[in-house]
């Protein structure tokens, strides 16, 4: 009986999805795109993902910004922004918002916006952010999530 119970527990543990925690500090076109691609990989793997949107990231999640590339800067090679955008278009690469949206459809992704970060960019309520955002949270929740994660990224 005890053996059966143990094997059941083992089975449940193996079947449990791996967990990824991402601190998304960046609000730039290139890094958001990278985050979207990494997120797609996690979605293909059925990972449970928690994204904590910190400082500059929160600006990009504002309704009036989102994937409007005119309002997003490049973190690296800023003068090559148009070339970067042209290449993405030619390769049929999705926008960062589309990547995030698709990942949410495919796996369990929760997006938490740091309350302080939102305030810095003049966004305090959920309705100030694009639909992708799930809630506004504090830093303690991020640390707890990171402690429990199999994969932890800071982008």
């Amino acid at each position: 009986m005890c053996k059966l119970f143990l094997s059941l527990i083992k089975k449940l543990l193996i079947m449990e999805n791996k967990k990824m925690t991402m601190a998304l500090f960046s609000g730039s076109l290139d890094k958001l795109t990278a985050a979207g691609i990494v997120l797609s990989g996690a979605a293909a793997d059925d990972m449970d993902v928690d994204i904590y949107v910190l400082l500059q990231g929160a600006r990009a999640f504002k309704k009036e910004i989102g994937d409007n590339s005119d309002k997003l800067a490049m973190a690296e090679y800023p003068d090559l922004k148009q070339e970067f955008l042209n290449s993405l278009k030619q390769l049929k690469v999705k926008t960062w918002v589309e990547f995030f949206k698709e990942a949410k459809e495919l796996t369990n992704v929760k997006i938490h916006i740091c309350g302080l970060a939102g305030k810095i960019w003049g966004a305090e309520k959920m309705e100030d952010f694009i639909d992708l955002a799930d809630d506004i949270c504090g830093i303690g929740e991020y640390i707890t999530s990171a402690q429990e994660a199999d994969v932890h990224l800071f982008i």
Partner: protein
Amino acid sequence: MTPEELKDLQVDKTVDARGTACPGPLLEAKKAMGTINSGQIMEVLSSDEGTKKDLPKWCTKKGHDFMGIVEEPGYFKVFMKKG
């Protein structure tokens, strides 16, 4: 399986992911896998070089059977059986 055997294989599902770059083919494969039954065979058409490594690894992790790759002019086909 040899490329000849794979070419003669009766597939249950074809996913044409040609023209999409990484992570397109991987996500297309994942979505399509959800629509077929265990034991059914799927082929993924891709021209994205990274797919050749990505899909076999993904199959192993997800418990599907990676059957092989067949080269075609300008693209390739990845064969897999749902676990």
